[in-house]
């Protein structure tokens, strides 16, 4: 068993049982993560035996390593620093902090220092938009970093001080950092997970399914699929095939701008495991996984402890055991079928459908993948009535949603509000003065500008996966959208042509406009790319990669227009710039050593 799969000792070994054919490389990824953590890299000497042990070829294992951002097969570094690089981090000066650190350490970003001491890079999001700017060192997150802290970090690294002896209070794992601003149910203190576990233990699977379905609970990951239906499909598939279901909690909270799952996992991990037990009882599962994003590895110890507590409760379903599996830096693994691929130890490539995971998921078993908040809601439902659940929210979106509010506001943090609240209500609650626009659901979601602040957060109007990122009049929407385009290009899994190539083309066109070479041609190209991505991409990542851009082009056109040249087309290369090196070498700077672009 690999070191990072934290199967508690008390858990029954259902995994290897006949219902769960243990494919040979089921935990290749977990083994690679363990090796990376121990040795700071996956050396060629370590790779071959690891691959062999898990039934993979060397090239397949190398393919897994190269897929995940936090795994590396070259240039080990004893201190690996990642700066969170989402829109909110940038608002809070993350770029300047990264530059400062690199200057102090005499290194360049994305390059390991010659002595193998330190590596500094950017990562898409560490999940702390409420406490930005953030960085992580060897997987441990540090929030609200400032210039003073950067200086101190540079000194400690230069002196090669072991990370364990750095001030503990610097790290997020040392103290609960949750910034909760409003609590209703998921985050309220007026119920205990053991009540929910107790109630569910007395119910038949059909009763649980009926209760969850009648309540109208919908998935909190963004798509809003009715949870009761998903569980029923899985249960029926299990009855049809004779294969036990697998229950998965999706804690791969990768959407930049969301952090609500981090807060739920920090404050109420027992509620999540209770929700998984409820799902297991309802569908007939013997195996459960909590898929924890690699960025949250610092939460792992506390989660494992909570799991032991809940599993030891007499009302825990006896045949059901849960393992915590780690991600390793891949946004696409939040997509449920990519997540299942990752659980099986592979590259996180979204699968073709049909079949849907509820029919055939983890190792071919009917699999339910639910968001953390959905499972916490399911636990709440076991301790409360359907009528009580429907007392808040709207007819088609009953209950509450937990918002991750960040960006330009006085009180960023987590707000649990009822479905149907207006954007304006949230803005008032968090003290946002003069907001220009709100990005709902992160980069893959939609940009909402001032005239739409009356819209309601619910599935009938404005669906939201929790991310609520505020930009005020100081922000440049063009730059925000350009940042998003780089995010998608970086996180594209590369499986399908439109996303692999199209996301990079999109980023490159926006870069060209940013550099002052943009024309109407680029705008036309942006529209063509957006439409190709939306209609032809294999999964939600590519399909939504141009969503915010489309709104921005319509609602914030001046931000684009003022950057455009008047020509119909402008080449991306800079003729005069191409001569800069020659001028430097010859020491010339006279008129004859320059070329004018307009002559071309």
């Amino acid at each position: 068993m690999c070191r990072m799969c934290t199967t508690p000792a008390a858990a029954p070994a259902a995994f290897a049982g006949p219902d769960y054919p243990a494919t040979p490389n089921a935990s290749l990824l977990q083994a690679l993560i363990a090796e990376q953590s121990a040795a700071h890299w996956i050396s060629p000497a370590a790779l071959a035996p690891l691959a062999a042990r898990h039934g993979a070829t060397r090239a397949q294992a190398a393919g897994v390593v190269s897929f995940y951002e936090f795994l590396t097969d070259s240039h080990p570094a004893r201190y690996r620093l990642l700066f969170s690089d989402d829109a909110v981090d940038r608002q809070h000066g993350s770029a300047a902090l990264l530059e400062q650190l690199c200057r102090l350490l005499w290194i360049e970003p994305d390059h390991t220092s010659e002595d193998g001491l330190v590596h500094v890079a950017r990562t898409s999001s560490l999940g702390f938009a409420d406490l930005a700017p953030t960085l992580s060192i060897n997987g441990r997150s540090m929030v609200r970093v400032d210039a003073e802290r950067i200086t101190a970090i540079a000194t400690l690294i230069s002196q090669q001080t072991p990370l364990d002896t750095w001030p503990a209070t610097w790290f997020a794992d040392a103290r609960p950092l949750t910034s909760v601003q409003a609590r209703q149910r998921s985050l309220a203190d007026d119920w205990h997970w053991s009540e929910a576990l107790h109630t569910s233990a007395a119910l038949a699977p059909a009763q649980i399914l009926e209760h969850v379905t009648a309540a109208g609970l919908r998935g909190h990951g963004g798509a809003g699929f009715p949870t009761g239906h998903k569980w029923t499909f899985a249960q029926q598939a299990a009855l049809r095939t004779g294969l036990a279901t697998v229950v998965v909690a999706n804690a791969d909270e990768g959407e930049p701008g969301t952090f609500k799952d981090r807060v739920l996992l920090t404050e109420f991990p027992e509620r999540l495991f209770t929700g998984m037990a409820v799902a297991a009882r309802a569908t007939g599962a013997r195996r459960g996984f909590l898929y924890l994003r690699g960025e949250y590895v610092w939460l792992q110890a506390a989660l494992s402890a909570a799991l032991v507590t809940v599993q030891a409760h007499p009302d825990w379903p006896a045949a059901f055991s849960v393992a915590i599996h780690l991600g390793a830096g891949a946004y696409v693994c939040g997509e449920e079928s990519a997540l299942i691929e990752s659980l099986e130890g592979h590259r996180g490539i979204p699968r073709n459908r049909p079949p849907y995971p509820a029919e055939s998921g983890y190792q071919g078993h009917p699999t339910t993948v639910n968001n953390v908040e959905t499972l916490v809601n399911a636990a709440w439902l076991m301790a409360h009535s359907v009528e009580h659940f429907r007392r808040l929210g709207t007819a088609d979106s009953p209950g509450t949603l937990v918002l991750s509010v960040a960006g330009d506001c006085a009180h960023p943090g987590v707000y649990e509000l009822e479905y149907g609240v207006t954007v304006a209500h949230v803005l008032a609650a968090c003290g946002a003065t003069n907001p220009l626009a709100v990005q709902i659901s992160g980069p893959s979601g939609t940009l909402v500008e001032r005239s739409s602040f009356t819209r309601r957060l619910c599935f009938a109007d404005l669906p939201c996966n929790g991310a609520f990122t505020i930009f005020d009049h100081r922000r440049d929407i063009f730059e925000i959208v350009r940042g998003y385009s780089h995010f998608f290009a970086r996180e594209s899994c590369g499986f399908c042509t439109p996303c692999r190539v199209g996301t990079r083309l999109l980023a490159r066109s926006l870069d060209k406009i940013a550099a002052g070479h943009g024309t109407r041609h680029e705008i036309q190209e942006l529209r063509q790319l957006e439409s190709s991505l939306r209609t032809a991409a294999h999964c939600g990542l590519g399909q939504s990669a141009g969503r915010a851009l489309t709104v921005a082009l319509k609602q914030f056109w001046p931000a684009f227009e003022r950057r455009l040249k008047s020509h119909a087309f402008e080449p991306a290369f800079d003729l005069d710039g191409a001569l800069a090196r020659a001028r430097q070498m010859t020491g010339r700077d006279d008129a004859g050593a320059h070329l004018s672009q307009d002559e071309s």
Partner: protein
Amino acid sequence: MNPPSATFWLDAQAIPFTPGQTVLQAALAAGASLPHLCFHPEFAPHGSCRVCVVRVGKQITAACTLPAEADMPVESAIPEIQALRQTVVQMLFAEGNHFCPSCEKSGACELQNLARELGVLTAGFRHFFPDRPVDASHPDVWLDSNRCILCELCVRASAEVDKKSVFAIAGRGLGKHLAINSASGRLGDSALQVTDRAAHICPVGALLPKRIGFVTPIGARPFDHPEDAR
């Protein structure tokens, strides 16, 4: 369940299918024309190239992975879908380094033929001009990654038919590339033999058997006379 005699509509053509067949499988079996690239009848549909996109009602989806259903109206030869396919093919040309005039596969290349069929005359987008290696280490097989379109047919053939898994996929996003299973990472040190299915399945000129270049002269290649082909 659908009776075996059920049909769906590919534009105005009725296509018979058996349950379990996808739209592309049934269309090709019926001899209908539906552009595709990463699909090969010997292997399970892959769904990665997105050339076979079609419209069904409000949805645009890949025909190769779409289960056929009775009376389903599938729109393929419509301007919107043809434009989308052109864009996808242009993306592939912009992504790699495809120099048809100097490529031995010219005239027998699926990508080149597809571009011709779709009327794609230029890459449309700025080329990426990636720096990709040529691996000539194998005595009998060339690997020119510049021409690779990442259809994964060689990966699948090597794993499923040859049972060797000589090829794998590495990297992510635009950095995705073909990887060779050998300690050196070179084809010459792998288990590949020229008689393997994987050595002959490449739809483009990335994997080519050595020493038979121009055995089939230009003018006598499969796609040289489009009026006869397909």
